[in-house]
């Protein structure tokens, strides 16, 4: 009964005209960045982070969340029609989605991607409503040791899932922690690594770092090679999947939804992991695995459901523990902090309007996305014809404005350029930026909780293993760190490793 009353309260917040407008802007921009290759939800969210300041916290967070799950919908359009993933979570949709389009079945592929996404998005929201409040009440009992261990686990999971050498990913995570510690020490107020620059006293801004590593670096990489696009030119008709399509997709959508939701909750996981895992699962369960890669609708339905479900599930650790499980959620945490809010166990009870309003808006946003992605598909297809040599200067312009507006300081534009160059070289040399960014956000919290637990336990390191939740997290993290040393596990890791920055 309580949940129902809360949902009604949330709908009251979400249906306010201003919040409906922000929700629409969010999902529209999300679809747009999902459709356009070369700009993803991370760049778009960091770009619009300063814009959220002009409205209420609810409106700002509703818009930012809309960009995230909107991009999951939009990404499939580009994957199916152009064979270029609009964002990382849609990489796997290219495999069978584009083959279906080549066989003249672009409509059903787009249709099942949108309906699968909608079903999964709806399920994940219902689960979010049921799980989050219970988890928040348990999380109140968490002490600094548990928080520290959970954050360590999140970072280790992300480095485990990152493509390439694990040593490189761990080195990136350490650099992220160090960058996060630049500025005044939160306990002693002593300046650290500021090199006498007054601009660094408050630390390095999240927006210039993310825009540099993901936005500018991506542009630099794209400009060094001519991007070829293989756009399907035939008119897209019959978007509704037929009876056989539904029959073939029902299982993959259900399994993708459940799998995606649980992988979304895991620290370090998220939509990208979920879509790959769902594809692998469907291929393994299929009676005709040889059809995969040649236009199997199950290869579109499962991963698309999984990535949307994971997008919903990822809100749980952020809303209940205040720990972002991935880079996108780290940006959302930034949006909360900008508005003076701290997500965590007390947020749901102290700000019920905000939490339930966001959840309700996500349902409304999912409905908006269904309309945006099916009847209006022609508009997005036209947008795909925008050449990259016209698009990238506009991306650069938006990133500059976004970075400048976040602090009203040219120094941040220099920081963005510097991180753009660093990000470019990192990608060229096989170092992924995702662990760095997540560690950058978690670094100060990690340090704070480590120092607090050491002070509280009077320097007893056993505090981390004597507390059950902390011990489980650290044991799991240790397993993932040692795992890649074993040849069998190393092979498995290579199979699931992801290019988060794609």
């Amino acid at each position, binding site marked *: 009964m309580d949940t129902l009353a809360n949902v009604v309260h949330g709908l009251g917040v979400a249906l306010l005209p201003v919040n409906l407008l922000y929700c629409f802007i969010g999902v529209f921009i999300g679809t747009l960045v999902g459709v356009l290759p070369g700009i993803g939800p991370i760049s778009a969210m960091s770009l619009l982070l300063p814009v959220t300041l002009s409205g209420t916290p609810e409106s700002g967070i509703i818009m930012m969340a809309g960009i995230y799950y909107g991009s999951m919908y939009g990404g499939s359009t580009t994957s199916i029609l152009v064979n270029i993933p609009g964002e990382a979570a849609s990489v796997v949709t290219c495999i069978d989605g584009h083959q279906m389009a080549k066989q003249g079945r672009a409509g059903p592929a787009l249709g099942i991607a949108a309906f699968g996404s909608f079903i999964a998005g709806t399920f994940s929201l219902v689960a979010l409503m049921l799980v989050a409040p219970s988890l928040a009440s348990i999380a109140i009992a968490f002490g600094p040791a548990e928080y520290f261990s959970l954050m360590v686990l999140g970072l280790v999971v992300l480095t485990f899932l990152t493509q390439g050498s694990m040593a490189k990913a761990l*080195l990136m995570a350490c650099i992220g922690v160090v960058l996060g510690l630049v500025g005044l020490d939160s306990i002693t107020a002593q300046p650290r690594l500021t090199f006498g620059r007054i601009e660094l006293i408050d630390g390095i801004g999240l927006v210039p770092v993310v825009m540099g590593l993901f936005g500018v670096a991506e542009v630099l990489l794209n400009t060094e090679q001519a991007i070829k696009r293989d756009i399907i030119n035939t008119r897209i008709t019959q978007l509704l999947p037929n009876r056989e399509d539904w029959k073939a997709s029902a299982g993959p959508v259900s399994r993708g939804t459940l799998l995606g939701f649980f992988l979304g909750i895991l620290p370090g996981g998220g939509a990208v992991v979920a879509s790959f895992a769902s594809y692998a699962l469907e291929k393994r369960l299929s009676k005709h695995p040889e059809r995969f890669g040649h236009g199997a609708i199950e290869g579109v339905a499962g991963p698309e459901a999984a990535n949307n479900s994971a997008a919903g599930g990822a809100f749980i650790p952020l809303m209940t523990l205040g720990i972002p499980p991935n880079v996108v959620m780290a940006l959302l945490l930034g949006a909360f902090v900008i508005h003076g809010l701290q997500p965590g166990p007390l947020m749901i009870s102290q700000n019920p309007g905000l939490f339930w309003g966001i959840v309700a808006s996500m349902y409304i946003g999912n409905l908006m996305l269904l309309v945006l992605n099916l009847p209006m598909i022609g508009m997005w297809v036209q947008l795909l014809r925008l050449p990259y040599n016209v698009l990238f200067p506009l991306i650069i312009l938006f990133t500059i404005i976004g970075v400048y507006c976040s602090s009203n300081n040219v120094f941040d534009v220099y920081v963005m350029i510097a991180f753009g160059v660093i990000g470019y070289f990192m990608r060229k*040399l096989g170092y992924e930026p995702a662990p760095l960014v997540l560690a950058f956000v978690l670094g100060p919290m990690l340090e704070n909780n480590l120092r607090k637990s050491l002070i509280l336990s009077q320097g007893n390191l056993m505090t981390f293993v004597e507390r059950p939740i902390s011990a489980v997290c650290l044991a799991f993290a240790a397993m993932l760190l040692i795992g890649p040393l074993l040849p069998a596990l190393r092979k498995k890791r290579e199979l699931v490793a992801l290019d988060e920055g794609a």
Partner: protein
Amino acid sequence: MSDQTNVKLRLDNSELWGGLIGLALGLFVIWSGLKLKLGTINDPGSGYVLFYTGILMCLFAASIIIAAVTEGGPSFASRWENARWGKPVLVIVCLTAFALALEPLGFLLSAIPLMLLLLRLIDPVRWTVAIPISILAPTGMWWVLKHLLAIQLPNGMFEIG
């Protein structure tokens, strides 16, 4: 980029240099941690986490270096194979020039030439397309920010914008 080009114990092994840079950064972080004071385990100081993170960095960098020496790795040339590396350099030069000009000239006078340069220098767009885009996009953004979102961009010494 071909990662298959294994070059053992050669100075242009990109993996080796990546590891060496990581090692140098790790040593710098350890030194910074020591300078900031470590404190004690009962009461960790400002440099405590930095110091131990620096040690971890050195360990991970050392493992990258060892792998680079024992297993080899792609050369710098192979990393940039078939890449038009001059294009990213041009973009960086344009961006740096823009950042330098932003405060003295103001947003509009620095963004319009930046857009024109990016549209014409990288993968040249026709003048008839490049000129309108380079004028309309920054002006449109400036108008939205100033009049709808009340955000002031720099107007420079000529006070334009």
